[in-house]
């Protein structure tokens, strides 16, 4: 399942997508610790699979919470994307 967490408003579309089919296979879930803003958490989803999700309190402000990792120029690789070995995490912006 592709779980899109985030929102779209007048300023654009801001979604973090987690491919849970890839996430299920991952054993270390290093993305959780890699995020400096602590956006990620491990949950049991509706189908009883343990997967990573974006915490509820961050879902409507990902644009701002991810801001520190996304400077306007010379953007380094995103820590969450880099830490995710199965390549399950993508950002829309």
């Amino acid at each position: 399942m592709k779980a899109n967490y985030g929102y779209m408003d007048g300023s654009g579309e801001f979604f973090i997508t987690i491919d849970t089919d890839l996430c299920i296979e991952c054993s270390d879930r290093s993305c959780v610790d890699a995020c400096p803003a602590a956006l990620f958490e491990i949950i049991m989803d509706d189908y009883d699979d343990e997967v990573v999700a974006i915490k509820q309190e961050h879902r409507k402000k990902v644009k701002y919470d991810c801001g520190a990792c996304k400077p306007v120029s010379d953007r380094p690789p995103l820590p969450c994307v880099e830490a995710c070995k199965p390549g399950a995490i993508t950002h829309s912006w």
Partner: protein
Amino acid sequence: MGEKTKEFWRWKEYNWSDETINPKEAETISAGVDVGSVSSQAVIMVDGKLYAYSNMRTGSDSPDSARNAINWAMEGTGLTLDDIHYSVGTGYGRVNVPFANRAITEIACHARGGNFMYGPTVRTILDMGGQDCKAILCDERGKVTNFLMNDKCAAGTGRGMEVFSDLLAVPIEDVGELSLDVDEEPPPVSSTCVVFAKSEASSLLREGWSKKRVLAAYCSAMAHRVVSLLERITVEKEFAITGGIAKNAGVVTRLERELNLKALKSKHDTQIAGALGAALFAKSLVEKQRKKAVQ
């Protein structure tokens, strides 16, 4: 009641039950309760068949709304809460359903409910709820494969439509048909914010636009807003709409026009999809429990 105090946004609440089914002979009675931000529904299934449901406005207290919804669905059936083997709560208030055995997100429930209502060929479900809008892709079993939810603002939701119904003093049930009764489609009003759209509509009324024309502009804006959400997940055939807005012909027709797709129709009330999915989950979960107990 004078026009000033009349609540034009208020839609009809009701309950229903299938008198041909005898729940006393049932092996499994499951229930799903969807406590949404605007409306609450309770669905009771008897051995996987739709038996009874209720659809009412959510009150200020989620546990009370859940109790009222299930009690109204059971009214006249002879059932009590003790007769229900398993209940699942869903929707915004899902964690506040006091009698639920489990809470499941409305995304998974709408996919499952949509699969029951529209058949296994449905792949895209658009749930236009009271306070959010969800685009869901699912497989032939009703399992979610992709979803997108917009609950940050009221644009593209039922609440936004209620605001317009009240502003124009048009009963909410008539909004869709009236919006289609225009000679020429007007340009849409602001689709990014209900407050902006409302002030724009007030200006248009002052300019001399008819109510029908303003409603057409708003329904068009709402359809446009939702299409941009759907485009992000790529609409797959077959396509269906659930939630209260699915009853608004003005939005549905414009959505179909923009997507160049016909939405599937169901004989069931589109507002019960979430609760129906929850009741289906409840049935599966109680059967799983029984299997475990036997092993």
